[in-house]
């Protein structure tokens, strides 16, 4: 197989698009981590639930795709807040971070992840369902060298940028966003400043789960929607978050794009059947040699 510049470009373009979706999930994980000092192991399931909510809204209720996207985000945000309020609050109150409660949180999230996957079987069944979305109004992009980018990929790129811009605006330029950042910085002092900390924690969880849901609905038309899909996404999002520097929001997106490109190039030039391992490989390499992430973001370490 000779080296073909056009196909390399195509792999990179598709890698970036899928990577942005990893980045959005990683954004949620980073948000929860920087806000609550916990690593949410059940975040992949939020992504899966989001995809299914979107699917049900688009197919069974019959709303247009953008409405399904927003609806799924809201529903998943509510689900996430419920899970956090009912199960995690007891542990987060005991202090997250690397305490004994931190180990409990990891095990708890792990258990929650398995429980949510299997709860999803009750509602959505075990079959992989295709997500049919009418996307004719989106232009199909053609890059030089006859690289056709399907509508769903274009849409993903646009919506991802909008979501990131929205999150950035919310965190940097609104009063509630300031409160969220204060809670992330120090909960005790945030209390003293009159911030409703429990509410902000719910809000952080809701935002993160909403982002995961958006990723799920975006990836639906590219792949089919399936109950088991959360786990691999979680691993890749973790890889993305770690590569970009855990807890850093811009790093999460950059990390996601890197994971996407790395994975696509690996699948193209090394072995396609080992595709899912490359993200882990990147994760482990980065963790071993540069735990603070590739972009030199200072990792938030709490004793």
């Amino acid at each position: 197989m000779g080296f073909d510049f056009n196909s390399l470009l195509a792999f990179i373009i598709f890698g970036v698009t899928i990577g942005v979706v990893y980045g959005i999930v990683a954004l949620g994980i980073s948000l929860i981590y920087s806000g609550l000092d916990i690593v949410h192991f059940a975040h992949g399931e939020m992504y899966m639930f989001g995809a299914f909510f979107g699917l049900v809204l688009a197919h069974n209720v019959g709303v247009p795709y953008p409405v399904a996207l927003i609806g799924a985000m809201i529903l998943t945000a509510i689900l996430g807040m419920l899970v956090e309020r009912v199960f995690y609050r007891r542990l987060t109150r005991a202090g997250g971070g690397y305490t004994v409660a931190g180990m409990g949180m990891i095990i708890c999230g792990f258990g929650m992840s398995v429980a949510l996957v299997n709860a999803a079987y009750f509602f959505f069944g075990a079959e992989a369902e295709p997500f049919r979305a009418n996307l004719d109004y989106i232009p199909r992009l053609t890059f030089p060298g006859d690289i056709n980018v399907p509508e769903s990929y274009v849409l993903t790129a646009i919506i991802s940028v909008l979501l990131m811009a929205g999150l950035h605006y919310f965190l940097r330029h609104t009063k509630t966003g300031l409160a969220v950042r204060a809670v992330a910085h120090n909960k005790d002092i945030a209390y003293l400043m009159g911030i409703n900390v429990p509410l902000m924690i719910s809000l952080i969880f809701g935002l993160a789960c909403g982002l995961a849901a958006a990723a799920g609905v975006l990836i639906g038309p590219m792949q089919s929607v399936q109950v088991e899909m959360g786990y691999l996404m979680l691993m890749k999002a973790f890889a993305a978050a770690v590569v970009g520097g855990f807890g850093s929001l811009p790093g999460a997106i950059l990390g996601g794009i890197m994971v996407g490109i790395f994975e696509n190039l690996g699948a193209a030039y090394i072995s396609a059947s080992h595709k899912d391992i490359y993200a882990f490989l990147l994760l482990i390499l980065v963790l071993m040699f540069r735990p603070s992430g590739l972009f030199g973001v200072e990792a938030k370490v709490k004793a």
Partner: protein
Amino acid sequence: MVFLSRIADLIDALASRHRLLPWLIAYVMLLPLPFIMSTFFNSYLIDLANRACLFILLAVGLNIVKGFCGQVTVGHIGLYAIGAVTSAVLSLEPGGFGGALGFGLPVWVSIPIAILVTAFAGLIVGLPSVRLEGAYLALATLGLGESVRIFIAVTPALGSSTGLMMIPAPSIGSFVFDSFTSYYYLVMTAALVGIYFSFSILRSATGRAFQAIREDTIAASVNGINVIKYKLLAFVLSAIYAGLAGALFAHMPPGYLHHNNFTVIEMVTLLLMVVLGGIGNVWGGVIGAIVVTIAYDQTKDLVVYFMDRPIVVQPLVFGLSMVLLVLFMPRGIGGWFEGVLRNRRFIKRSEEKLGGTARNSQS
């Protein structure tokens, strides 16, 4: 409660004669178990007991790194997989079914090699622990463990989708460990020796170093403990347990191995054992392993029909019970039992000092 204390007293009395005496008695008591099971119940229970023994080895091994040394690892099942597949591939005849590798080594050679390979893999899994803590370490180990399974699942030489078949059983002379009953003696001995060594480790200087690292890494290093060395040692020790359990699992009748045996569900089952038993408590881990193995077996065919869909409820139950255990019983069965024993010993010691008056204050 009183019954438990009586047993503890008895064990203490026996151990004061010779420290191996309680273990020998336990071993002798466990010998006729397969015959009791097959006469009064059915012989399927023996298979269950074998699997319980393997999970005891795994849980006790996981406890070393997690409970003694306080390192969060969730990739333990990957080590188990490495041990199982290595031993299976080494002992299989060359040119096996479906392009599986085979080296045709005797089983008694393949098992130690598998343990060595797993110990080395444990060293690699442990390497991130030198630089990472808590959540980061969990991520790294999860990634490693899961990539092992995916690698097995997509590599035909390791029996990708069909699994490895006809894995030979170990034998001594003409006696072959190819039935549930004969294999029981192999795994039961291994489990008991494993538990014993786990206690030896806990009580040795190494075990104290592990605990010091768990309580406070910086304080431990200030006190002259080589933190890196002991962290890696904890990972290697637990990998040896996992490798032994995996190798024994591979050669267990019917000698069949599939990568579905190493999924996240197995990892959750293993974590549930350790959490139910109480993290850091050896006997807790053993009890957790037995209870969860039985529960796993009893619930694995449990199907609920919801909107005309058959749904296996077991993972849901296991996941939820793990969440609830962490929330409401963070120290597990072992922690509770330890509390009872400590109270009792405290009362006993006070009695000796005060001359029997302390008994009136407890009831």
